[in-house]
């Protein structure tokens, strides 16, 4: 068995730690790129959302390199993500490829027994004992939490750094060095070291950078390729950004969901505008917008793929929040047709808007 998994932001680093730890052979698809998107679009229904297309591209590129098993998280939720696994299985069957799909659904949807069955399909290929396997899993979780923490810190500190570009450089070399390690233990050491280095980046506390919250559909905000590397661009502009949704947040949220204790703060803040889950992370998007305003951000950017049902619901609600709280929010829609020039113009104009607004308010007081 040669296992592969679709890309989602930095999860590939944790996936490497997991499979290295378990001693399972795996094939990482090349980082998201134009060819993956082109191939994915070719084999996907035209109206399906962007993440589906990129994921299909990931599988195809991994299969070319010899992968025969796909591991992906599932959901029986009310957004189209719930259909991904079934549709992708059908697609590869039609293409005449014999690919085994292991879909990790929530136990509430498929039963705990079935979940064990599916996990067992992976773990039986590991030569490690039960204890060793659990250790590998815990280490992978640790890697994921660390890289999310590092990334969050770098994105935020980019607004305060004294030497322009230092945070971005550190973040990039951190990912590269982590991928060059051979064991999860070494990887954790590398990540810890970078975390310390980020803590010691020279910052100017007197700076008051523009602060933007990134909200919206989880895949398109986490996966940089799908949003035309918006967070990198904002780092270049010296904007401090924050994004609440991360892979580690998702894991925690999914695990806590059955107890209904997940993301209480976000839900509480969303309540006035959207009190029900509308699928995907529509309610979270609303809650985060309200929270961002409370936390003193200058504005928020919502990103979602064309045709994303939950985010269309939140997009219609956001202007009300924007008006009531006097808080600028811009929505950006991405798909395989998104032109970079128009996208960048909008982001730049939004930053200008926030800057000039601030100047104006200051000159009035």
């Amino acid at each position, binding site marked *: 068995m040669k296992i592969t998994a679709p890309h989602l932001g930095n999860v590939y680093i944790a996936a490497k730690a997991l499979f290295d730890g378990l001693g399972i052979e795996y094939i990482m698809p*090349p*980082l998201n*790129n*134009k060819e993956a998107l082109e191939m994915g679009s070719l084999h996907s229904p035209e109206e399906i959302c962007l993440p589906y297309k990129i994921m299909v591209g990931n599988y195809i590129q991994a299969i070319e390199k010899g992968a025969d098993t796909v591991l992906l998280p599932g959901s029986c939720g009310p957004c189209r993500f719930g259909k991904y696994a079934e549709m992708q299985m059908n697609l590869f069957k039609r293409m005449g490829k014999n690919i085994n799909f292991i879909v990790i659904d929530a136990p509430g949807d498929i039963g705990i027994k079935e979940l064990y069955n599916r996990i067992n399909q992976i773990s039986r290929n590991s030569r490690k004992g039960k204890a060793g396997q659990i250790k590998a899993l815990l280490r992978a979780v640790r890697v994921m939490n660390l890289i999310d923490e590092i990334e969050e810190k770098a994105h935020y500190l980019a607004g305060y750094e004294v030497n322009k*570009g230092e945070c971005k450089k550190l973040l*990039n070399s951190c990912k590269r060095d982590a991928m060059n390690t051979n064991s999860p233990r070494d990887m954790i050491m590398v990540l810890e070291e970078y975390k310390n280095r980020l803590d010691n980046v020279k910052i100017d506390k007197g700076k008051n950078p523009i602060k933007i919250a990134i909200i919206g559909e989880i895949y398109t905000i986490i996966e940089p390729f799908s949003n035309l*590397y918006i967070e*990198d661009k904002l780092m*270049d*502009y010296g904007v401090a950004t924050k994004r609440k949704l991360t892979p580690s947040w998702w894991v925690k949220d999914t695990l806590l969901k059955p107890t209904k204790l997940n993301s209480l703060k976000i839900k509480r803040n969303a309540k006035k505008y959207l009190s029900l889950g509308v699928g995907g992370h529509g309610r979270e998007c609303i809650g985060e917008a309200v929270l961002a305003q409370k936390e003193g951000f200058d504005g928020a950017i919502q990103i979602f793929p064309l045709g994303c049902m939950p985010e269309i619901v939140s997009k219609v609600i956001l*202007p009300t929040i924007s008006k009531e709280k006097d808080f*600028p929010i811009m929505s950006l*829609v991405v798909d395989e047709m998104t032109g970079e*020039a*128009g996208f*960048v*113009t*909008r982001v*730049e*104009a939004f930053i*200008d*808007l926030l800057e*000039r*607004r601030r100047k*104006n308010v200051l000159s009035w007081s």
Partner: protein
Amino acid sequence: MYYLGVDVGSVSTNLVLLDGHMKVVEKIYIRTKGSPIKAVQEGFKILKDKYNNVKISGVGATGSGRHIAATLIGADAVKNEITSHAVAALEIDRDVKTIIEIGGQDSKIIIIRNGVVSDFAMNTVCAAGTGSFLDRQAERLDIPIEEFGDYALNSNIGVRIAGRCAVFAESDMIHKQQLGYNKADIIRGLCDALVRNYLNNVGKGKEILPKVFFQGGVAANKGIKAAFERALGFEIIVPKDYNVMGAIGAAILGKEMAEKERKTNFKGFNLADSKFESNSFECSGCSNRCEVVKLIENNQEIGCFGDRCGKWSNRVKSILIK
């Protein structure tokens, strides 16, 4: 003290020269024709002949070709079109509340409250109704683009044209033509359809309050202006320099930046005589495989664009967005 603004757009390249009181001394409107470098050089040739001895104290660049233009001329400010248009409009009239800007290939709405941009939108899905589409229709109907709008004013009743998509709008126009409707009614119908499309797409959910400024090349079209007034129910204003507003804004921003930095990066008017070359290649440094463009002036590299990591674009220290 003079300030220069350069707006390199998809269809036209505009240059303006402002005096110390932000009054337009010279405006040049050149068709870009797919080669922005040549267009900027052409503009500089005209400026060089007339203003070679004046002192330029600040330069700004805007438009979709702003980065290439900024590298060529040594701009102090590089700003997007939205900010530039807003700055120019506010310079003329502090009370402006809405800007409708329709250029060669995109259309925008800018909402201004209390003298600052509070919201904006750009066309996302379709370019129907922008300059290039109108150009093509004028050509097809064999009417000079300058007279296109006047035709619409001669009609009393517009024919309903499907304006959602440029291609379908054209088919619908041809269909109506074959049914025997006269040109004037079809053109008025087209103007109405494009305005409807604009208000439903770009202007969706935006509060359009007077004063409304109508800027960009399409503002020359009286038919579209009249259609906007019919749809909105109040007068809209086309400023005197409507077609170079972006460049005016850029010049003002260039002035601000040059004053802040106490110097200008302006390279002078001599670039009109330089020889420019551009090479593009795919960088093989990592898996991103960025398409990089290298700009060469008289055999000397002056700038690179298109890479994500900064390996190329930082080689020659060019100005960043400040």
